[in-house]
């Protein structure tokens, strides 16, 4: 327990020291939420853009932390020999993974609080949707962390960096986070609905909507990605 606690503390300290990570996990989501809520240029289909944007940006924050942040950090840790070195300590891979998951959850809790406060200040009123939103918020990191580790587990550090950022952009645009899925051409919309970003954003939007209900397709897609991505990562991951 002492080792796990120390590892979580170390991961959080290193994260706080990494300015790029903080920009990715907090700066960009807050900026997007504030800017597009005030400047009504996106086809959100609502009179109050923040009502559309807040759930999408929460999904974006989950994706940023779990996929890009974790993936890039892990890829570089592999390049630096950190993972190999830790493999020869009693910490073990299991506790290392648990420490990373706990770190993600702590960071996401901070993100959710900050984003919810900013969105509320911008006029968002989620009502009782938080209880319904818990499951998608837990499934989302599993799917995105799996995707991040699939990339980090095979690609060299800098290639992984480029790939994670490229995938982030694609999932952002096709994820229903800042652009309504209904505004996309039909083939793209079908593709977007099969992606974890689309399922998470629509799931959260449903949870925070007036009916407080996650669409059935979003549950199916989220659960599939949340199971499949970590399994693929576990089979393909290289520790050195």
């Amino acid at each position: 327990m002492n080792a796990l606690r120390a590892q979580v503390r170390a991961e959080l300290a290193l994260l706080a020291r990494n300015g790029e990570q903080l920009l990715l996990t907090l700066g960009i989501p807050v900026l997007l939420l504030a800017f597009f809520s005030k400047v009504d240029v996106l086809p959100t289909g609502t009179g109050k853009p923040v009502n559309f944007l807040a759930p999408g940006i929460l999904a974006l924050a989950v994706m940023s932390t779990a996929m890009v942040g974790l993936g890039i950090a892990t890829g570089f840790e592999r390049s630096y020999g950190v993972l190999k070195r830790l493999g020869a300590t009693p910490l073990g891979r299991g506790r290392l993974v648990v420490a990373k998951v706990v770190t993600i959850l702590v960071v996401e809790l901070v993100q959710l609080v900050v984003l919810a406060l900013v969105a509320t200040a911008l006029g968002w009123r989620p009502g009782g949707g938080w209880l319904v939103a818990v499951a998608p918020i837990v499934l989302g990191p599993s799917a995105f962390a799996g995707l991040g580790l699939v990339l980090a587990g095979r690609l060299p550090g800098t290639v992984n960096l480029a790939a994670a950022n490229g995938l982030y952009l694609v999932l952002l645009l096709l994820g229903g986070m800042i652009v309504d899925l209904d505004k996309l051409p039909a083939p793209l919309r079908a593709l977007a609905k099969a992606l974890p970003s689309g399922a998470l954003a629509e799931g959260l939007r449903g949870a925070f909507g007036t009916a407080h209900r996650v669409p059935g397709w979003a549950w199916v897609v989220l659960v599939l990605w949340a199971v499949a991505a970590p399994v693929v990562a576990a089979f393909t991951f290289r520790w050195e």
Partner: protein
Amino acid sequence: MAAVEVDELVVRYGDLVAVRGVTFQAEAGAVTALLGPNGAGKTSTVEVLEGYRPLAGGRVRVLGLDPSAEHGQLVRRMGVMLQRGGVYPTMRAGEAVALFCAYYDHVRRPDDLLDLVGLTERARSTWRQLSGGEQQRLSLALALAGNPAVAFLDEPTASVDVAGRQLVRQVIRRLADDGCCVLLTTHELDEAERVADHVVIVDHGEVVADGSPDELRRSGPAEVRFAAAAGLDVAALSAHLAGASVREASPGEYVVAGEGTPAVVAALTAWLADRDLAIGDLRAGRQRLEDVFLRLTAERSVAAVDDAAESGGRRGQRRR
């Protein structure tokens, strides 16, 4: 029972056989140096012992454990120092030592570890702010965090300055004196000669020599080495020394084959004095470890070339 037992170890990377039947033992309370040129199979051998790599044949035991199947038990008693890296670049030296100490049950005090490797003043510097030598010393401290019974140290003095090397040697010596089995891999022969109790030389994936540094030196021929002006008439000197073989090993460095008896040394210095030639370094006795190493690895290379030529010839004959 030896702390490390390697018996007919084979390691493969696809079709490439990197280690072919390596056998040796390393004892507790002693420093064993695994020597060899680049690509000799040292790292592959040690990675099997550390449990990182599967073996394709043979048997290894570390502290009586199978490093792969019983990795969880082994890591509690094993210290590892990688050749490079292994630490988060933005982590401070003091944080890294404290973190590694948190992994183990029976640990040293983090401050003591930093002091041991002379990094107390650098405790707040991040890994990437440390010099190459300081990084090596921090890696050594991390390898010692759990009071290991066996320590695998990969090139522990690479990039370390002269004062740092002295410190690293002292730490390694003290570790062995406290009962730890230290297995270090290096291609720096001088380092092995200074610190090792036992030397295993590997080349092309095979053990070519195994023994104490003194035993290995004694395995080579006796000789007299001296330094003088380049381009001496070695034939004339050889005749003066009753036909002893004399060669210029490198410009200005000469080797006389045979025992360095007082008579031979006297004849040599007299020959130089007659020609008013200054003598630099003069050493009589057995070969240095470096000479033994070069001789053994050169013999292997010649044998490999001969084998290749022979098999090429056979292929040619078959084609004909």
